[in-house]
């Protein structure tokens, strides 16, 4: 049976849910599933990882140089740890997309990006052209499979596992040429955009950062995460980490509200896996209505307050 190594993502002592989604993809491939955790102190994360269903071993590699998720530090060590494995997987989050191709090159293979379905142990489906086409990619039997997993396509693995935790020191040399300076986050108390059941997004039509307050207020009422189109981010209404789409976050909430978003393909590709899409736009011909489950032609500056009222 082949062995699958998953690069775990974590921050502040918490395992990221994207990792549990990779486990589900690994199960679809079939094999013994191991998780690798790179941290300066990975004990808490390793415990959470060991509790994931279907994970049989957790590699906890602690070193001061892993206190920040730097590709230049992690990739060589991941490549070293990959010895004996048939597969190396990572979530297609910004972290996975940064680290895994660097490891793949060190391992001498191309990466399969964004696995959305598993055809067989060596054949996968992945989206291209902003999701306008899906292509089958096969990795020959003599080649290692290095792949990122499109998290929106997979449910998170459950709990109840009891994997063994193996601690070790790094085997590879780590470079000094890349230094972490700082992470700037606008930490809020809103649910995480990528895991929220409900997401409310606003587009260029909001017109200002102040007006975006309407979206936040509605989100508070519904305990929803908040997203945005690229136009809203570019205009400075909201920070970049709220962008949904081809080059932002690919999300799959049960309920997605798009207020004043036209529905450009680059945006739509980020919400294709949402359960129910609700679109409010004053233009009846806006392309967003082609993919919305429930559409309402109207002015968002009237609709949002009315909706808030109706939900009270």
């Amino acid at each position: 049976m082949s062995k699958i190594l998953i690069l775990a993502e974590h921050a502040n002592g918490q395992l990221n849910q994207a990792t549990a989604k990779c486990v589900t993809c690994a199960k679809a491939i079939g094999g013994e599933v191991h998780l690798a955790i790179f941290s300066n102190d990975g004990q808490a994360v390793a415990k959470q990882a060991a509790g994931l269903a279907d994970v049989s071993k957790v590699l906890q590699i602690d070193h001061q140089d892993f206190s920040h998720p730097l590709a230049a530090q992690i990739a060589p060590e991941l490549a070293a740890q990959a010895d004996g494995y048939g597969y190396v997987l990572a979530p297609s989050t910004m972290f996975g997309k940064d680290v895994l191709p660097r490891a793949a090159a060190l391992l001498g293979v191309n990466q399969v990006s964004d696995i959305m379905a598993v055809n067989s142990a060596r054949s996968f489906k992945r989206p291209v052209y902003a999701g306008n086409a899906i292509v089958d990619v096969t990795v020959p039997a003599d080649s290692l499979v290095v792949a990122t997993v499109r998290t929106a396509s997979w449910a998170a693995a459950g709990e109840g596992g009891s994997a063994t935790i193996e601690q070790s020191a790094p085997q590879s040399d780590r470079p000094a040429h890349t230094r972490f300076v700082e992470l700037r986050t606008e930490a809020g108390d809103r649910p995480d955009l990528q895991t929220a059941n409900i997401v409310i997004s606003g587009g260029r039509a909001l017109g200002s950062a102040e007006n975006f307050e309407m979206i936040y207020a509605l989100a508070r009422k519904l305990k929803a995460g908040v997203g945005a189109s690229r136009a809203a981010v570019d205009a400075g209404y909201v920070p970049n980490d709220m962008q949904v789409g081809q080059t932002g976050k690919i999300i799959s909430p049960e309920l997605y509200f798009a207020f004043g978003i036209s529905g450009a393909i680059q945006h739509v590709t980020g919400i294709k896996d949402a359960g129910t899409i609700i679109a409010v736009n004053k233009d009846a011909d806006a392309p967003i209505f082609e993919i919305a489950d429930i559409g309402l032609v109207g002015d968002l500056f009237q609709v949002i307050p009315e909706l808030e009222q109706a939900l009270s």
Partner: protein
Amino acid sequence: MKVLVFIKRVVDYNVRVKVRPDGSGVDTGGVKMSINPFDEIALEEALQMREAGTADEVVVVSAGGNECQQQLRTGLAMGADRAIQIDTDKTLQPLSAARAFLALIEQQQPGLVLLGKQAIDDDNNQTGQMLAALWGRPQATNAAEIVINGNSALVTREVDAGLEVLDIDLPAVVTTDLRLNTPRFVKLPDIMKAKKKPLDVVALGELTSHDDTNLQIGQWSPPAQRSKGIMVDDVAGLVGELKNRGLL
């Protein structure tokens, strides 16, 4: 400092590509082709560095058949000093592209290498990271700001949690995100001038004999369509519909 910018010829982002009925690929015949938008941002950044005096030469490079000379000429018209075509009729997988780019880097000795974070055709998001790995140099992906400080650079990156700042030694590979800058428009006189700028052609085989193709591309299919939804007249209708479906 010499800056090398790698650009890829792709189907323009405004084109809605369609999968061929026989599943052999997408229809690209007669379709508008452009510089990959992220690479265009990379080139713009290099030009701004030259204008600010941190760069003194901008070289634009593309791998492909003669048709990619069109994008190289556009790059020259934007302001690149010279262009290099890595001539190949093969579709290079990211590791092959990275291997060829590295060979060119060894000849050209740039202080900085810029390329887009992903190409909007294959959406792979691999080449920059692979190039940095093979070169054994720093990488900073998804750049939203680049500040050159002599032999190092401060790069602000777009990450899931917000913005991350890295301090990297040069030379390095930086991949560019959408908010780094807005590329300039090309003016007609610049297009005329670009025709006289040097465009060298080097055969892929002169750079590398290593074939890194390990993925087999099979059948293509259109994405699953979401079924057509309904329209409601007002907020009451919307709330009613959500309640009916048990969503509220």
